[in-house]
């Protein structure tokens, strides 16, 4: 579905974020479909604000300039709901009042009307995540890694056109981290989604094997390396 032309992917065009007088970060970068851009920085470097800006949640006390283009469309004037950007948080944020399956069905677009098909799609997603048979479980009874898998599937079922990952691996133990990281990156590659990963873990950046953008004390970002 993606042609390899100039407009595909997620393009952060001359983006700069200010809080009052201070420049928090500056970035100008294109993320090709299926590839990962890793943004690294210590806490307080404005990483989360960058995600907020792309997803449409930037708090009003921040000032942003530049544009966010997704497959050629300018997202900046759109509501978060209209941006088709999938967001994964530090914690999986499964909805605690729904079952695992309901969490997934919640994300499937309403255009899929038949309940039985919705259910099947959710089941299939669970299978893909290696969690077959977990559908009726209370999300709180799942391990952290399992919750993150469900959260990934929930994000993908909403048919996003790009993925933003806000340190979603930081709460997992080391053994699980590599598995789940691979699951996420493979899924993104397979669906041809541009991915922006925010992290402070070098390993994440290596595993992503894409461009790395470092925010550090030397300056508010150094372009897109």
């Amino acid at each position, binding site marked *: 579905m993606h042609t390899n032309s100039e407009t595909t992917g997620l393009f952060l065009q001359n983006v700069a974020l200010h809080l009052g007088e201070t420049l928090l970060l500056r970035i100008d970068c294109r993320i090709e479909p299926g590839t990962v851009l890793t943004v690294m920085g210590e806490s307080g470097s404005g990483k989360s604000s960058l995600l907020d800006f792309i997803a449409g949640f930037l708090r009003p006390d921040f000032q942003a300039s530049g544009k966010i283009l997704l497959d050629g469309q300018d997202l900046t004037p759109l*509501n*978060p709901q209209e941006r088709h950007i999938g*967001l994964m*948080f530090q914690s999986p*944020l499964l909805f605690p009042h729904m079952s695992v399956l*309901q969490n997934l069905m*919640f994300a499937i677009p309403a255009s899929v009307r038949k309940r039985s098909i919705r259910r099947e799609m959710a089941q299939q997603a669970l299978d893909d995540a290696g969690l077959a048979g977990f559908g009726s479980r209370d999300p709180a009874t799942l391990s952290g890694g399992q919750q993150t898998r469900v959260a990934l599937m*929930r994000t993908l079922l909403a048919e996003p056109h790009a993925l933003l990952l806000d340190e979603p691996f930081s709460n997992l133990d080391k053994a699980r981290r590599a598995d789940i990281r691979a699951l996420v990156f493979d899924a993104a590659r397979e669906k041809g989604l541009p991915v922006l990963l925010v992290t402070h873990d070098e390993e994440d950046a290596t595993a992503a094997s894409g461009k790395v953008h470092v925010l550090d004390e030397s300056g508010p970002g150094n372009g897109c390396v």
Partner: protein
Amino acid sequence: MTTKPRAGPAVPVILVSVFLAGPVLAGLAGTLLPAFGYLPALGRTGFSLEPIRHLFQQPGLMTSVWLSLATGLMASVLSLAIVLLFVAGWSGTRTFRRLTRFLSPLLSVPHAAAAIGLAFLIAPSGFLVRLVSPWVTGWTRPPDVLILNDPLGIAMTMGLVAKEVPFLFLMTLAALNRPRIQEYFKAGASLGYGRVATFFTIVLPQIYPLIRLPVLAVIAYATSVVDVAAILGPTTPAPLAPRLVLWMNDPNLAYRLMASAGALLQLAVSAVALGTYLAGERLIAATSKRHLVTGHRHLRERTARYGGLLVMVTIIAAMVLSLMLLGLWSAARSWWFPAVLPQAWNVMRMADTLGMSLGLLGTTVALASASALVATALTLWLLENRDHRKTSSSRRLKTLVFLPLLLPQISFLFGLQLLFLSADFSGTFTAVLLAHLVFVLPYAFLALSDPWARLDPRYAKAAAAIGASRGRIFWQIRLPLLLRPVLVTLAVAAAVSVGQYLPTLMVGAGRIVTVTTESVALASGGSRQSAALLALLQLGVPLAGFVLAALLPALLHRNRAAMRLER
């Protein structure tokens, strides 16, 4: 970790139980017995069903019951719906933050003052009609329509809504402070759901358990309210609760017995209202389950959002206007219809009334300070003790503390009044203070338990590791760190005390009179000027409390950046 929990219930738990359950249980018993004809103090020692029979012979009793039920339930559900719709549509926006600043102080406006102000606003001779008369309406004298005291209780319902919306709003706001709730808003939006849909499908199910008790308290209160009903409610017949108060004060003893029977009926009315609400809650939960996972994003939400905003702004505007009218009326000498503003002012008379009200004001302030101090101290003791013993019964404790708010005040205040009368305790400061505490303590607990729980436990651990005793940790670490919430709790408690109408009226027995009881008495029959001034004084006491609560920490912590309010 080194301290072993002692066996048996802790002292503060017992104390709080006694303060809350004591008056409530004694009061309920004191209501129950006379309802069946047993009142030895007045020479009735036999049991009979006569009071109940007498009650059901009263003309229009069923209308009264129906009015209490309908206005109370309607006002509560309407208030909740308005609050939820507004929060759903606007939470996290600049508009939301701005309106929050208006809604918080409105919480401290006592019911009676709000009702009096609202009456000045919407009466046939009120400000709204004056604004358009005679140039639009052609009226040169107040129209002969029952806007106030209308037989359906619409004005009363509106008055209750205006007062309960700020309360439920702040309860919801506190619930939204739970960790991660703001992220869930983002999660919903990034899945493509509209604001309103995200709130109702994802956020509300998570925070509802926290706002449920307050909603139930509102229902119990609204179905048995006396002061608002006396000012705005229907009169022919009145809702049940104000009629009960009339009967209770009747010199004819048979009426008092009947009033006790009526208080039991009131208990049943409130119970039916609570039951109806809980049944409706279940029904909604059951029917919405299927809709939860259909994937409808509900992006066309403009009507819902702006509708919610409009209603909220209207309520705030009505309250603010009402309070301004209180100010105008209290300084007016003549203000004939249809003049929009008073024709003549009389500040001297205002000063006179003020001078005469100083005694009332003194009693009010004394009661408010005493009950605020006792309630806050007890709450602190309770919380500190709970931490120390590491009992995790916080839910059960919360329910116990909240219980008096789930009963109609009148159902146990009647009995309490009779008990105090026979013990020759009625009409004393201590008796009224005890009655106030029953209602002040729950709010103090409500206001302080969250900030207390949110305080980082590592501060206390760090202090303990240096060797500080439990007492030192409390006085030198926790209390100073919690200075602001403790002061706010004191102010909330004082505001609740000032707002108490029925407990003061019943237990005070005419000897302990506050600006609140006096303003209600004046509003139904006395002079508008004096009623307005007393209502203003009612406002002034809590306001002073909140101003102090805001100023003191700023002064004491002026050189401590980390102690300033987070943005």
